[in-house]
């Protein structure tokens, strides 16, 4: 149990500290693919440091909710990062929240972000909140359906059990997981505000979703939100890895397997980040009202994955 608790803290801390690095890596890859000279991989840390040092500027009519939300969002994301197995699997905290609760955590953070965006009462804020909730109401059930497919295969909604089941299965082909994998990729793109659903690099009013919501934030509040965004990307990547390529994870709570697990995870993250940048580089942002179609497809794919599981794999 005590090793478990140490592992739990180490992993959560690792996720919190490494998350900006992943963000930096994706940005770097993207810059290379676009033929720009890339910022250093540590750029997100510098940005965070700079933001934490600045004075916070807040609108006159901001309510306490506005100042509370960044902490809430950061706490939710840290919790999510603690649940998802990245290097070790046998975590004492994981029985507290299963995959359905994980979806709930993401939803909690999102609702707070959307509410905070509406707090000041600028047209951009509520526009962003509306669009974010529009993306979410399709992405969230799709994510849940992806988890359901994995849960049906492994007969559990506990992430460690799912990961163990998927890591130790015979190398058989699960068509349902293929559908779920595609759906998961589409959902993670949408949830992390990446191209083709949203563009993290733009402040163009016609297209922005996530950026519109955080326009009023500055300094430490903005830093916390940016950090939470990086953590979310990290958590989603870790989730994708845990569900679809869990090989190499330390299944039992032993320190001996950790270095290998850490290396495996880093390699997978680097690969995943590069892939994300590549997909972003070759696709264009879709029109806002195409987003429901995009996510509707993801939702249907996930449901199809479940149906196929019932048809072929039971």
């Amino acid at each position: 149990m005590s090793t478990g608790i140490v592992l739990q803290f180490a992993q959560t801390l690792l996720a919190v500290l490494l998350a900006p690095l992943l963000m930096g890596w994706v940005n770097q890859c993207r810059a290379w693919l676009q033929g720009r000279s890339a910022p250093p991989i540590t750029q997100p840390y510098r940005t965070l440091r700079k933001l934490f040092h600045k004075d916070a500027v807040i609108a006159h009519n901001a309510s306490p909710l506005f100042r509370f939300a960044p902490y809430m969002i950061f706490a939710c994301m840290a919790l999510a990062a603690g649940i998802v197995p990245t290097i070790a699997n046998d975590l004492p905290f994981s029985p507290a929240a299963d995959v359905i609760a994980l979806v709930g955590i993401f939803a909690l953070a999102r609702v707070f972000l959307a509410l905070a965006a509406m707090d000041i009462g600028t047209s951009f804020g509520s526009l962003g909140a509306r669009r974010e909730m529009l993306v979410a109401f399709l992405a969230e059930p799709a994510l849940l359906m992806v988890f359901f497919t994995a849960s049906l295969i492994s007969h559990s909604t506990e992430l460690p059990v799912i990961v163990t089941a998927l890591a130790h299965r015979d190398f058989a082909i699960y068509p349902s997981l293929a559908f779920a994998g595609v759906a998961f990729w589409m959902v993670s793109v949408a949830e992390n505000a990446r191209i083709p659903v949203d563009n993290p690099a733009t402040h163009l009013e016609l297209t922005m979703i996530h950026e519109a919501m955080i326009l009023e934030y500055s300094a430490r509040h903005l830093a916390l939100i940016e950090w939470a965004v990086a953590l979310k990307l990290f958590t989603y990547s870790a989730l994708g890895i845990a569900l679809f390529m869990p090989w190499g994870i330390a299944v039992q709570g032993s320190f001996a397997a950790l270095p290998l697990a850490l290396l495996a995870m880093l390699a997978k993250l680097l690969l995943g980040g590069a892939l994300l940048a590549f997909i972003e580089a070759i696709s264009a942002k879709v029109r806002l009202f195409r987003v429901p179609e995009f996510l509707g497809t993801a939702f249907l794919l996930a449901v199809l994955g479940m149906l196929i599981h019932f048809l072929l794999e039971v």
Partner: protein
Amino acid sequence: MEILSLLPHEPVQWAWGVVLFWLALGFTIQLPQASRNLRSGLVFPIGALGALAVAGIGVAGLILPTSVMILPIGLPDLLFHLRLDALSAFFMVLLGSAAFGVTVYASGYFRNLTAGPLALLAMWYHVFLASMVMVMLADDAYTFMVSWEAMALSSYFLVTTDHKIPEIRRAGFLYLLIAHVGSIALLLAFGLLQGGHGDYTFNAMRLVEITPYWASMVYLLALFGFGAKAGLVPLHVWLPEAHPAAPSPVSALMSGVMLKTAIYGLLRLTFDLLNIRIAWWGTLALALGLVTALYGVIFAAVQSDMKRLLAWSSIENIGVILAAFGLTLIFYTDGKGALAALTLTALLYHALNHAFFKGLLFVGTGSVLHATGVRNMGYLGGLIRFMPWTAWLTLVGALAIAGLPPLNGFVSEWLLLQAFLLTPSLSKPYLNMIIPVAAATVALAAALAAYVMVKFYGVIFLGQPRAPTLQEAHDAGWAERLGMVWLAGGCVLLGLLPTQVILWIEPAVRMLVWDALPSGGHWLFLTPVSSDRASYAPLIFFAVVAGVLLLTFFWVRRIYHGRVRRSDPWDCGYPEQDARMQDSAEGFGQPIRQIFEVFIQAERDTPDPFERKPRYRGASVDKLWFIFYAPIARVVNWLSDQAGRMQHGRIQWYLIYSFATLIVLLVFTQ
């Protein structure tokens, strides 16, 4: 000791005592001799004590064995039979605990009413509460129908409190009409259930051997009758009209508690009175429930009247409850007792949750209405700054109804979703095909509920005030705050302590499906099946989020600083921005309207670009109204026109009619 033994000692007698107490309270304040204090403010606090007693009796009823009593009133050969078993006890806890908060709130809410209208309102209010308890206690069809009608009528009078407004009269009429159409179906269902023996006690009905065909007829009639009360699509049309029309505490009771009496009736009839259950019943209820849930939440998203939005959201929640009911039937008829127990637990839990968060949200809108006088969200905004108590307490309700952890809405949704994941064990393959689609629909409805709540909360309480008068909005008084704190506390506690709550509603579950969730796990962890199948520990969850939050806060303050500078919001270089440029309620619902335009008939008046005072009007109308109700209304009108031809107002004609009828009957009986 002598005196103690004379006191009623069975829970059912106590419950009957509370019913009498409420009725007495309601009628006493009608008397001109009633003291001024009672008439002006004390009536609701005293009534609230009764609600607390009902909750206590319910808890006792869950623990103690079933108790029955026969009252010396009623028909000569059919006296009032009362019975308090675990199912009634659970619903009495629901009623008592939610009604306590709402009634405490009401004592502040109605403080400005003059004595006359207040006395009338208080009378119907307590009759309404008493009749709901009677519905839950009834142990024969006659008592049930009398209480059911008393409930419908008293709530009708409560809905039409502001009867001088034509729309409210119309809403009340629609409510009364559909309530009675439903009652007729129930009457027929009970008629079939007694199986020709003429014994209308529930005990006799339990023993009647009924063929599957007639059992199905009873079930369909019950589904129709109770569905009309609960707001099942397409019988839901009265709900978005009547609930907003009533004063807010009444809306809270109607949405939070009265709809649940229909669920109670459905459970009582299907699982207790009928002694056979057929698999397709469950599939039908599941399908209807899912349609209702989705339909309700889509319409909730496009509303701009805050109370109407909540009414539609009630339809959604009833849909989820009905879907859980369908699943319970499916599992039960398939011989999966433990799974049926799981879905039934989810159902009862959700019913209890809904009573709390919908009650809270309705009374929250009541305070807003009191302070501002508007129900249209287009004239609200920014109230978190002027009404912090109402705003923060309502936030708890909004987060809970959106199904967010660690509050209570999440627990019941989590239980229901777990049930979907356990279906591969079902014996009928077609069910295995339906279940994933059903799970997806429930998930979609839950996600849309979050959309609705962000809209509801964001437009009313956040942003800038859309009208200058809002600056003077006053916060809720202390009685109202107390009521809201009670309801919000319920949302939090039901969310944090699910294992205790489930243990506590177990007798009701066991009574209906003869099975219960496995117990014996750690009290912190909710493990409905087994610990490596699924588990959830809201207390740990809450502790970690709160811990990280505080840690981050103090860490940021300590390492860096907490300096804040206030300034104007960023105006994009356009300084003329004002509050009207914020997203309106219509604007926030626009994407949903566009995506689901198949169901919604949008009516829009857009202003001419050159108008000096541009006015915009948008309304989203339920298409089912034109598909179902308008033709029915036309046929009924035509029929009554035809009947009207026979009416001349002359006594001779009526005598001839009577004579003709007599002749026909005589010929007929020959």
